[in-house]
């Protein structure tokens, strides 16, 4: 069976050697399985042969987790179906998808209530009839890149703007199926298997028992996607969420849906000064309870968007950005009715005024198509960075994007921004800052103009990793560690804890072949 599934990685498959992080890897073979059965056969054979196995989805990741370091590329894009739907005893709907299902397509199916029901059980079909009659449902994770796959999102515990209110992907994952290195399968359901303290025992479908000693570190009390999720008495499902393809291959995911809030209004608030925006964030975080997101754009990000709008047809539809605007905060209220939303909007306006802003300098979106304009504005920021990088890469191929993904506790927001500004100015970098300011989680993107700046930027990020760790923060809050941030993980947890993580990995992957280079700094290069 496998000789038909596994292809030599010829020039035709070159695109599967890289991802959105712009890093390029190498591999000998590639496969595009369509079922769990095929995954099991491929994994069994490749693993037995001692080949490394890198699992891929849509390759939209920013940490190079899907970039292969030799061996076999297991691309799951053809496993993209919604396979089941059920209504739980809790009244919530649960949807089961294959890992290659694309977020935007799953969201569209949920919104338009149109699914390809081929192969669905009678129970699922019955649940669909209830689903059709039920109020609109919401899949909460909303990473900016909506062409990500659900499998990829689970593997790096992806977040998005709305994670400020709803938390990351983790909280929506109710069950997983994971193919292990010998082709055996772990079927895990939330609420069924727990660790005892830091000891976890798992039983596979094949009847095998796996005993795992969990690492002893404490997770930072911030938004976090750095390394294995570990806690006392933790649920076994959580170990695999955010495991970056290092323990096995996820082949099925059950996600929890929530009822869509009746009224969602968004507003972009512009300020003259960064300090005003920070004060505003601190104020609304305290005072307004139903905010789902708080997203920041610094002045340089606004300048980049102004330039993009002028130069590129794809961005011509961006709204006109008044030259007087110095920076912006996007926020969104999720409410039961319009009265609440109006009150929320006016409270936001009052907070702006209290922080030296003006209600005139806002863009309000009260329906989906208006929100789409503001989302487009948000998405255009990283897209513009990428396009700039692609241009510069043509001048010096060593240049790739340098994007930080660090979070700190609330009280350090002003400090961490001050640190970024001071160090970036000292280094003379071209850069932008944007992202999830509500979680003190800004993406600093350095746009290197030459190889030297690229190297200096990398060093700077390493320094920040140490500083952020000192503040009790996380070196990766949502993108995952992948390959690009493995050395930061060492800074964050230290060699002893990293060794514990390696022992955990060895319990599932004794030969160290799954996701080689992810989480752990490469031993061989």
């Amino acid at each position, binding site marked *: 069976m496998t000789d038909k599934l596994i292809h030599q990685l010829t020039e035709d498959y070159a695109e599967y050697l890289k991802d959105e992080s712009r890093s390029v890897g190498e591999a000998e073979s590639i496969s595009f399985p369509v079922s769990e059965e095929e995954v099991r056969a491929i994994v069994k054979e490749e693993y037995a042969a001692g080949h490394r196995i890198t699992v891929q989805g849509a390759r939209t990741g920013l940490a190079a987790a899907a970039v292969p370091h030799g061996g076999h590329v297991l691309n799951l894009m053809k496993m993209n179906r919604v396979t089941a739907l059920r209504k739980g005893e809790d009244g919530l709907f649960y949807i089961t998808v294959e890992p290659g299902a694309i977020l935007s397509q799953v969201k569209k199916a949920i919104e*338009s*209530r*149109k699914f390809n029901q081929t192969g669905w059980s009678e129970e699922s079909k019955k649940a*669909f*009839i209830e689903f*059709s009659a039920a109020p*609109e449902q919401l899949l909460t994770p909303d990473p900016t890149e909506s062409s990500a796959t659900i499998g990829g999102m689970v593997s790096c515990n992806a977040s998005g703007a709305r994670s400020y209110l709803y938390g990351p992907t983790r909280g929506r994952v109710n069950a997983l199926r994971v193919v292990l290195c010998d082709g055996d399968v772990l079927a895990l359901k939330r609420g069924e298997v727990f660790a005892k303290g830091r000891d976890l025992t798992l039983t596979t479908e094949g009847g095998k028992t796996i005993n795992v000693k969990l690492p002893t570190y404490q997770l930072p009390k911030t938004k976090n996607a750095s390394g294995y999720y570990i806690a006392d008495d933790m649920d076994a499902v959580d170990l695999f969420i955010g495991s970056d393809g290092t323990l096995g291959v996820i082949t099925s995911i059950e996600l929890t849906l929530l009822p869509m809030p009746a009224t969602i209004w968004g*507003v972009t608030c512009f300020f003259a000064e960064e300090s005003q925006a920070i004060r505003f964030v601190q104020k609304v975080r305290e005072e307004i309870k139903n905010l789902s997101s708080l997203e920041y754009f610094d002045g340089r990000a606004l300048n980049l968007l102004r330039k993009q709008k002028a130069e590129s047809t794809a961005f011509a*539809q961006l*709204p*006109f950005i008044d030259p007087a605007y110095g920076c912006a905060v996007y926020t969104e209220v999720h409410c039961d009715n*319009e009265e609440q939303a*109006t009150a929320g*909007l*006016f409270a*936001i*306006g009052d907070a*702006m005024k209290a922080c030296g802003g*003006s*209600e*005139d*300098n*806002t*863009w*309000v*979106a*009260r*329906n*989906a*198509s*208006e929100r789409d*304009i*503001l989302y487009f504005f948000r998405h255009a920021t990283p897209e513009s960075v990428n396009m700039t990088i692609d241009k510069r890469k043509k001048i010096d191929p060593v240049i790739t994007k340098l994007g930080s993904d660090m979070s700190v506790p609330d009280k350090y927001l002003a400090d961490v921004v001050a640190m970024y500004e001071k160090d970036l100015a000292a280094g003379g970098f071209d850069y932008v800052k944007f992202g999830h300011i509500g979680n003190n989680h800004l993406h600093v993107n350095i746009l290197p103009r030459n190889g030297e700046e690229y190297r200096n930027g990398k060093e700077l990020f390493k320094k920040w990793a140490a500083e952020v760790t000192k503040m009790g923060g996380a070196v990766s809050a949502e993108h995952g560690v992948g390959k690009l941030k493995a050395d930061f993980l060492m800074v964050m947890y230290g060699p002893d804890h990293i060794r514990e993580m390696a022992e955990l990995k060895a319990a599932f992957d004794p030969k160290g072949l799954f996701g080689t280079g992810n989480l752990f700094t490469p031993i061989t290069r």
Partner: protein
Amino acid sequence: MKFIVCIKQVPSTNEVRLDPVTHAIIRDGRQSVINPFDLYAVELGAQLRDRMGGTLTALSMGIPATERLLRECISRGADDAVLMTDRAFAGSDTLATSYAISLGVNAVGGADLILCGKMAVDGDTAQIGPELARTLGIHHVTDVAEVMDITEKDITVRKVTETGSFVEKVAFPAVITVVKDIVMPRLPSISGVRKSLDAPFKTFSAAEANADTARTGFNGSPTSVVKTFTPEGRTEAAPVEGTPADQAAFLLKAVKEVR
């Protein structure tokens, strides 16, 4: 100068959903929105009002809940709003709608320039603009893509045609319908939203507007829908078999058909 912009309340999506059991069309309680094409008319109206001075009134015919969308027009730059609402207007086709809108225009004392979107995304008829103009007995220009000049007496516009464009000068009073992207609609500000909640808003019933009830609603609608159905679903791509030569011939034929 007096400007009026006509808007229509439409469903926020034009996707049609079928009940899985009865196969009937589900009109779920999705939020209604301003017809997207009308947003361009609102923005253009606001810009022309800013340039020439005067007022911009938002006008619609619909259920009382349309007030929310008319107030949204105010948050986007209109000064006040008028809603024609009455059970007597129910079941209107484009002719009866144009009549009801014309009553609204007269009720506010007429206008120099009336702006409409090119068409509504639910009905797709593009008929209201010209029918309204004829009902009022004034000029109209459709598919306006650019305002080249405006004076107290007339407006010079560029309208798109299949083969290029026409530059037309039209004396007031007149109706123009505008195409997508003639201007970029602004998003309202929080202060705009505050203002819209207190701004003047008037409703007119058929009687208040002195309507001839033979011309309103179902009575005034010559056309009626006798059947609605969803077109056959998108089927899978049809394979084009044969040698590359056959396939090439198929492609060339397709190009020829379109050109």
